[in-house]
């Protein structure tokens, strides 16, 4: 089986490639263009004129809720949402039920994904047993079972000694550590950014220092253990400053940005809309400016969604009581293109694609994220200028919890190819 993608703008940051040209897929892998003349199999042609031909996008931060919370999302529905968003590889967080803290749960997720998922679904394992923050999970066994990283995402290990040992241990088995940065004492019962709007609305505040304190801790531990700690969903200006300084010194520390943290400020909570309740919370314009600056200067090198599906009945409660999080896979690329490339012009397209492909691949030690000859043919076709309106009702995800319904965006994926097979098309 061969697929010939003609006349697209091929952007493959891993190989420093950005040119208009053709891409040939042979039997699920990127092939030599000369193979076009072989007569052995039929050929599908795709006219990609005006489109970006990108390595399949990678989102290293999603919650697919299985096992245990299938009413919010399943591996199947989540993978469909990923495909519809242009993502060919996603990395699942371990806060499932049971928690992904044992090789058998990892095996179950991998089996399930192999059976039903339209895209590559890669599991992470927990750092601590049952995400309890008290005892290490069997990190070595998890690594052998195939996790691509360890994380207690959704929770954060407060005990610095335990975190230190986890990082040291992870270094031995060769997996990076991803951390949701939240100091429980500083954050308390906070549900929204602590500032003007929390004061006005009388909602418990989540101060930026609650994130920054743990980012600082992680910098110290990454330095002490000489091992990668990746700070998830960075939301605060102070965190960007800390990361910039540490990275300049060569510390193995990194950070990721989610679309909502640059698309919305905490003003969005003024009508108590629980679809604007996320953790970490929406912050201020000052924080957005710092995140954009961090993206522009390379301090923040990874983009991710923190896709966090919740059912309507779970979100349709009092603000305090609602779970944190929003779905993100199907709006992520559109928002990043619209905000980073078109509106704020902070980065050019190749850089955006780098942040969504080769950068997460490198961090996690994955082979994907490139269009190199012989690579598995994960390809995303992107129309960078297509204007479209977000319709939550049309989401492939099992959940609809998004603050972006009705938003007009410019740019989106129009075709997603996994191992040579088209799994989604606009």
């Amino acid at each position, binding site marked *: 089986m061969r697929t010939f993608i003609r006349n697209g703008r091929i952007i493959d940051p891993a190989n420093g490639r950005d040119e208009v040209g053709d891409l040939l897929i042979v039997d699920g892998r990127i092939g030599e263009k000369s193979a076009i003349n072989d007569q052995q199999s039929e050929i599908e042609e795709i006219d990609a004129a005006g489109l970006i031909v990108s390595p399949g996008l990678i989102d290293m931060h999603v919650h697919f809720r299985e096992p245990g919370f299938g009413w919010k999302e399943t591996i199947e529905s989540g993978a469909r949402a990923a495909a519809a968003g242009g993502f060919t590889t996603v990395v699942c967080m371990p806060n499932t039920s049971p928690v992904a803290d044992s090789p058998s749960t990892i095996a179950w997720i991998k089996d399930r994904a192999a059976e039903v998922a339209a895209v590559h679904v890669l599991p992470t394992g927990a750092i601590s047993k049952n995400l309890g923050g008290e005892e290490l999970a069997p990190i070595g066994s998890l690594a052998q079972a195939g996790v691509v990283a360890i994380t207690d995402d959704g929770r954060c290990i407060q005990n610095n000694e335990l975190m230190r040992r986890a990082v040291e241990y992870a270094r031995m088995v060769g997996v990076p550590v991803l951390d949701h940065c939240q100091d429980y004492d500083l954050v308390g019962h906070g549900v929204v950014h602590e500032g*003007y709007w929390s004061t*006005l609305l*009388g*909602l418990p505040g989540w101060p930026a220092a609650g994130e920054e304190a743990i980012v600082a801790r992680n910098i110290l531990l990454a330095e002490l253990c000489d091992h990668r700690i990746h700070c998830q969903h960075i939301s605060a200006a102070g965190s960007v400053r800390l990361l910039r300084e540490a990275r300049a010194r060569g510390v193995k520390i990194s950070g990721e940005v989610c679309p909502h943290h640059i698309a919305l400020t905490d003003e969005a909570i003024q*009508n108590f809309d629980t679809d604007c309740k996320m953790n970490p919370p929406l912050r201020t314009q000052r924080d957005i400016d710092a995140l954009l600056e961090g993206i522009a200067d390379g301090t923040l090198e990874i983009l991710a969604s923190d896709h966090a599906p919740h059912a309507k*009945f779970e979100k*349709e*409660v009092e*603000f*305090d009581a609602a779970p944190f999080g929003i779905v993100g896979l199907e709006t992520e690329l559109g928002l990043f293109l619209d905000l980073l490339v078109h509106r704020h012009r902070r980065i050019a397209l190749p850089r955006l694609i780098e942040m969504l492909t080769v950068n997460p691949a490198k961090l996690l030690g994955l082979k994907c994220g490139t269009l190199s000859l012989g690579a598995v043919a994960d390809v995303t076709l992107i129309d960078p200028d297509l204007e479209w309106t977000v319709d939550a009702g049309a989401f492939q995800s099992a959940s609809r919890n998004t603050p972006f319904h009705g938003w007009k965006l410019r740019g989106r994926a129009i075709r997603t190819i996994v191992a040579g097979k088209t799994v989604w098309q606009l």
Partner: protein
Amino acid sequence: MNSGTVHWTRKDLLGLRELSVEEINLVLETADAFKQVGTREVKKVPALQGKTLINLFIEPSTRTRTSFELAAKRLSADIVNISAAASSLTKGETLKDTARVLEANHADIIVLRHSSAGAPQFLASRIASSVINAGDGAHEHPTQGLLDLYTIREKKGTVAGLHVAIIGDILFSRVARSNIFALLKMGARVTLVGPSTLVPREFEQLGVAVSHNLEEVLPTVDVVNLLRIQHERQRKEYFPGLGEYIRLFGLTKARARLLRPDCLIMHPGPINRGVELDSELADGAQSVILDQVTNGLAVRMAVLYLCGGIATR
């Protein structure tokens, strides 16, 4: 009862931040009329006859619930009281379902007290019944704000140009927020006084002054509104203890001598005598604390009448 061209078009009373000066004046003028009802031999009018009011108090309250109940009875409404312990919410029912069940029972007005900020907004946007906020978390307590305003206006003739100090735990206080919004709208100047942990500087962005020095503020104000220190709710890191609170921020007899003779002393209750307010001052000549209670009845009658009465729809 209708003042000129202003008409009440709101189904709900959720907070004072969204009310216009005209709407606030309309409530106060309507309350004037209802206040007279309380002085009559027969303290009842048929304004809400045939209407059903539910007091849905998810968080405990005695004085506010009683005030709403009396107000509704004086307007001839039928009333049902539901407390958290007795409601299906303890059986896992959501607030939305509870309210929809009440609506299906033809409740015209739901008076909601809830520990979560925004709970009344949540209900009001989902059911056709009128929703009256009787206090939501640390957000708003609009009828308290209105009755405080009414009392100040009654005693001082006007609110515009006055300087009001709100003293105590502002951070966790819905009474403070409703007072701030209403007083600023009506042209008063507001200074918040209390420990820096309970009066964070973010409040300045709301257009008020923040002070941590009670002695400096007391001689300059026309009204002091003292808030209860809610020590049962606060973790101990917010202030070192009641003894130190009294030393720094309690309105003692000695400090009261700094007040202007015509300065009003207000308190939304319940009072911790000897903590935020000296016991004798609470009962003294400057205290209007019981007037607040009486006015609360008239103000709540006005609110129920405007939101739930025939006049609206």
